[in-house]
């Protein structure tokens, strides 16, 4: 078998999952694909358990908030095939109201705290997570602070508005 590269990896995924996989691109050499909420766990399982791909390392899980899009949250997974040194970024866009996605803890143990952190900051429900509690913020907090609608500074401040800088 050839050494894995982005093209072979993409071909494998498309062959297996068909139109469930959309290729977003290769920003700075890192293959980025998009998949749906329903198939993300299957994709991760396939990547980890396939005898050839061996993507055994979950590097990171995080989320991004795009308030102006119909699907307002992107959950971003980074996985890594250490044997071939190929990384893959998987994005799943989910609805902004009551965002939820199946948990990846069934595939990778390490997903536990990464998902708790994502829940803590974005309020994304990871269905089936064994212990979905806040992790870095205090338990009494009733907002999800990394959402774009929560300002960092006093929203009434106007001295930093672009207007004053001629923009």
């Amino acid at each position, binding site marked *: 078998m050839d050494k894995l590269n982005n093209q072979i990896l993409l071909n494998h995924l498309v062959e297996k999952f068909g139109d469930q996989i959309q290729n977003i691109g290769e*920003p700075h050499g890192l293959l980025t694909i998009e998949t749906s909420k329903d198939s993300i766990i299957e994709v991760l399982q396939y990547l980890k358990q396939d005898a050839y791909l061996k993507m055994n390392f979950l590097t990171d899980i995080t989320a991004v*908030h795009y308030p102006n899009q119909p699907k307002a949250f992107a959950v971003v997974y980074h996985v890594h095939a250490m044997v071939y040194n190929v990384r893959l970024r998987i994005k799943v866009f989910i609805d902004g109201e009551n965002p939820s996605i199946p948990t990846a803890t069934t595939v990778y143990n390490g997903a536990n705290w990464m998902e708790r952190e994502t829940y803590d*900051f974005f309020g994304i429900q990871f269905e089936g997570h064994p212990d979905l509690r*806040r*992790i870095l913020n205090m338990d009494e907090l009733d907002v999800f602070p990394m959402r774009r609608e929560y300002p*960092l500074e006093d929203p009434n401040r106007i001295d930093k508005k672009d207007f004053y800088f001629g923009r």
Partner: protein
Amino acid sequence: MSETITKISSNKPIYVDDDPQDELITLNIGPTHPATHGVFQNVVQMDGERIVSGVSTIGYIHRAFEKIAEHRPFYQITPLTDRLNYCSSPINNMGWHMTVEKLLNIEIPKRVQYMRVIVMELARIADHIICNGILGVDTGAFSGFLYVMQEREFIYEIYEEICGARLTTNIGRIGGFERDFNEVAFAKIEEFLKRFPPVLKEFEEMFTRNRIFIERTSGVAAVTPEEALSYSWSGPILRATGIDYDVRIVDPYCSYEEFDFEIPVGTNGDVYDRFMVRNEEMWQSLRIIEQALEKISKEPKGVFHADVPEFYLPPKEQVYTNMEALIFHFKIVMGEWDTPQSEVYHAVEGANGELGFYLIHDGGRTPYRLHFRRPSFINYQMFAPMSSGMLLSDAILNMSSLNVIAGELDA
């Protein structure tokens, strides 16, 4: 009201049956327990000396860096990265600079890359000194810690010579360094290469064949490679289980591919192996620094940043006399740079493992989203599950050998 009472009464010791021998004790380790070496809490259920189960609570020094970063231009994010792993802040600084340079496609001159390698390897040594020294303290050997601490002090003096700061260094700028290493800095680095090996050797001799140390650490908290991988471990603790994953080798940055060094790996994944891996990494770092100094001497002198006037601040004296310099200065400070829309994941080998920066940029003045992949955070999640069944004193050693730095844990 009744709920509060049940809450309080549930803190009473739980009696499994009438036999007082079976009584479990709830013990709070932390948030400010001296043995945790940082601000985080573990509530453990103890059966005598053994831990039955534990719950980790973290977040005591959470400072919302990811949120702050969404409101700061790139160069103002560097001081935030200082405060992640504050035992080796130069690695974080360099990792961040390289992430931005990758986004902006800035080519860095070789000499600057070697200078960065020196700074990063010094930081790695400083971090491993702390971790291994503290591990010694926790096994009851205080003097080793004091011997090597002096050398960390010397590394801080080198930082001071390079950038003026000691702990939260803010070394370098996007595109290179803010100034060249001066003569004193080079002299001190060379002096460090001479004075550190005997100290490290002495430190090694105190521990590696020390029977008490071996019996306290060998076989403690042993982790299999499969477990370590499934918990996304990285860094020295992963290598201690026998997996030779090092970002410096697999994804070389800063010309690490030109250097001749080895990746030490362990076999058992226990506390002793982690100690040995860190120890050997310090020797390898010394080798790297030596090679970097040699490579620098072959490069043209005086180059300390890339030639990218649109991203790198012009020298101050020119700003006051030269119109172009003033324009560039103003544009950079006001964040009027022309930046591409893209996303970057860049990882460096931090002292604790893979330190990743995931940057999504929409072309504005600030990142749209910046996420830190913090090795301490990800490594630490296995601590509570792996502690059950362990002696309390072993769990403390385990915690020290994971080298959990509260700043990196909580971001």
